[in-house]
């Protein structure tokens, strides 16, 4: 299959820089996700790869072949649209055969490949049905079958699950991932749902205002975010401002909320400011009388609002300087009033100077 290289691509609509100097290298056979809030440019970038949006600058390659100069119908990409875009005037079989007919494939081979594609998406026997007889999930399967049957260089998916209900969404994303592994196809996937992106991808690019903030594996995106935006957009986190103290190579002392921490991976000079990210589940509320494990740092504060969510409980602790820390634990807190929060400094991420 094919690697996708996006080099220095930009596009301006009026005064808005929809895509602003983006470079991404998607590996052959990789499941690559563009993640970001609405208006961040992720769909525009996908449409550039498909050929429905022109580039102001930059270029796009499939393997070694430059494709941004080709018209969209000659790029051999399979695209799955947010609203399915299943042709209502053609049967399910006709929809899946549409791209093969455009490629002048022999009739008997078309029949065979359509049947195989429908089987892959668990719609065998549906070829004669009409789109209006199908449910949303089934329409989505038709759209996927139609896109993969042409054996495209890359599969492009534009928020394909956003019109499905929550349960079906989780089921379908698993199927899409399995299908991708089975076919070994390169996938470029667009979503605004961070959980979906983490669950399904080999790598994720988090985008914001037309720019790429970070490209990394789902685990690194969550555990090693590089900017405050990535840290707060993917999951929830506590962002605290701190001041850098004495340095020692890569490690440094950081003063935050009245406490001094020793952290690694700190950039910036002594006296400089930085932002720290602490995930709610990395913070632990000590039960009365419990002693923090070695290496852990403790902070004291007042227990605030408690939200019981079923599998987990969320609550806030207000520190002496007024900062509110958000915590998450499996059990509701046993303590009340004055409490102690403990955490492993290794799970604190230093993010550079606050914006």
């Amino acid at each position, binding site marked *: 299959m094919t690697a996708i290289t996006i080099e220095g691509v930009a596009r301006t609509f009026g005064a808005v820089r929809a895509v602003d100097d983006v470079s991404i290298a998607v590996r052959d056979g990789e499941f690559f996700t563009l993640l970001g809030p609405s208006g961040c440019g992720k769909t525009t970038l996908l449409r550039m790869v498909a050929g429905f949006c022109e580039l102001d600058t930059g270029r796009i390659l499939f393997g070694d072949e430059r494709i941004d100069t080709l018209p*969209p*119908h000659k790029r051999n990409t*399979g695209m799955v649209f947010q*609203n399915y*875009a299943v042709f209502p005037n053609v049967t399910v079989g006709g929809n899946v055969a*549409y*791209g093969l007919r455009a490629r002048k494939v022999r009739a008997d081979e078309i029949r065979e490949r359509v049947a195989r594609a429908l089987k892959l998406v668990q719609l065998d026997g549906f070829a004669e049905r009409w789109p209006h007889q199908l449910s949303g999930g089934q329409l989505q399967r038709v759209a996927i079958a139609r896109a993969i049957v042409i054996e495209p260089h890359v599969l492009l998916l534009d928020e394909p699950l956003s019109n499905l209900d929550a349960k079906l969404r989780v089921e379908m994303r698993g199927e899409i991932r399995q299908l991708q592994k089975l076919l070994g196809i390169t996938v470029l996937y667009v979503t605004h749902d961070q959980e979906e992106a983490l669950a399904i991808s080999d790598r994720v690019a988090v985008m914001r205002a037309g720019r790429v903030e970070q490209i990394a594996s789902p685990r690194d995106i969550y555990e090693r975010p590089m900017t405050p935006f990535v840290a707060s957009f993917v999951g929830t986190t506590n962002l605290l401002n701190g001041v850098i103290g004495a340095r020692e190579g890569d490690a440094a002392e950081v003063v935050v909320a009245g406490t001094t921490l020793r952290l690694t991976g700190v950039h910036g000079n002594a006296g400089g400011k930085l932002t720290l990210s602490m995930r709610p589940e990395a913070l632990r509320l000590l039960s009365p009388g419990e002693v923090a494990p070695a290496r852990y740092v403790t902070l004291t504060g007042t227990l605030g609002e408690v939200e019981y969510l079923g599998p987990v409980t969320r609550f806030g602790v207000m520190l002496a300087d007024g900062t509110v820390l958000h915590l998450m634990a499996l059990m509701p807190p046993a303590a009340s009033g004055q409490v102690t929060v403990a955490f492993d400094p290794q799970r604190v991420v230093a993010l550079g100077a606050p914006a």
Partner: protein
Amino acid sequence: MRGFFGRNAFPLAVFAVAIAFLGLFFLLPLLKVFGASILDASGKHFTLANYTSVLSNRFFLNGLINSLGIAAAAAVCTVLIGVPFAFCLARLPIGGKAALLALAALPLVLPSFVSAYALVLLFGRSGIVTGALQALGIPFESIYGPKGIIVVYTLTLYPYIVLPVTAAFKSIDVSVEEAAQNLGASRARMLRTVTLPLVLPSVLAGALLVFIEALENFGVPFVLAEDRPILSVEAYKLFVGETTDNPASAGVLGMLLIVCTVAALLFQRSVLARRNFATGARRSAPVLSVGPALGRLGATYCWLVVGAALVPFVAVVVISFMPFSGPVLRTGFSFGNFVQLFERSYRPLTNTLMLATLAACGAMLIGVPIGYVVTRHRSRLSALIDIVATSPFAVAGTVLGIGLVMAFSSGFLILTGTWLIMVFAYMVRKLPFSVRSASAILHQIDPSLEEASINLGVPPALTFLRITIPLMLGGIVGGFVLTFVTVASELSSTVVLYSGPWTTMTVAMFQALEGTSAGVAAAAATVLIICTILPVALVYRLLRRHELSML
């Protein structure tokens, strides 16, 4: 390079054709009318004398006042009739709503001057009802003059209110009304403070259309005004020269008509600018539960209005099958009127069918691509084309006809007296409708369907043929039929442009009215009604979705 020859070639070609067509057959004629109004007799020097002489003439000044007064009165009357009708249709539990809506929309495709003529046959000086009343000793007031004209306009133009306002009532989200009631408003208060204000923009939009249609109509005042001046009729008389040929004064009257229309448009815009109530109903407000008495009252009202509007047409059809001796109607059954009508020639009928077919083809051929480009390729240029292509509806048919004669009776292109100039006039007049109906259908077709086809390897032009056209087909056929029937019953530009061999059915009726052949006129009217009802009935299922887009 790809951009230029690939995706932008099609819109550019459409723009070129649209600009050439509208420039030649719409803007140039208007310019000629304007020119005639501001030039002296030699045609070389600028002068305002034409305007001062027309505006200081009591007769023409009365014409202006009559035209404006009648149009305004028609707008008010249609609102008074149409809004309650729409409310009953949308919100009261009455039976036969689909039939009611279909019958209420029918006057839109029927020729309004036939209704006016029916009024004369029934209530005119020697009318059937008038005669019967006089025999009983009951005095009956004359229906000629503004009164009768307003009655005809009200009965034929009220669908312009009913269709958009019914849709507006249905598009109010249930939650808005529930919120009003939750906050303590009674149902009457809710209707007054929430429901009615929300449909106001649609009421105003409909009223504007009624005003414009009433202002430009030629046939109805021609039948009913007698010697009272009406602008659209006087412009025709001045130009065709019943007394003396006077293009300068005809030009002034034409410009006055256009100015009135534009003023009404601007007034409506300024009122609506401050009210943008797009609520986009998730769930329409439900039919109100009212007592059976109120429901029956609503149903009675609706059927009465629909009946009153259609009775004149039925009466004409019945009368056309009765024998006349001269202008006097006798009882009995006879094909005599039809024999008399077709005695000389079938040409008027074949002309009407041919011209309407050609004009409908032409209007769709130019209008559908314009509608496509305007909807799918948003740009400043396409916004401009949209405005130019939809503005012919604001220009009276007589004025456009006069302009076309002025532009094409000499010079580089001579078309006066040919059938071609009639087809061009019809195409220009119906273009707004074909553009609007095409873009209305396209709004319902998701652009990603076309993108999906291109993505699967089918080039844009082929995609347009294989995906877009089939999906638009129902709408295109509907638009074609509606264009056909409205052209078939067109009189205002025809009466200026036709020449002997190209007499249409409407002109045949017009000529019979001018003479004393009441029977022939009734027969011609019946033929016209058949020509419009039959095609509409054939494709009614297709049309239902597009009733609104023709407004």
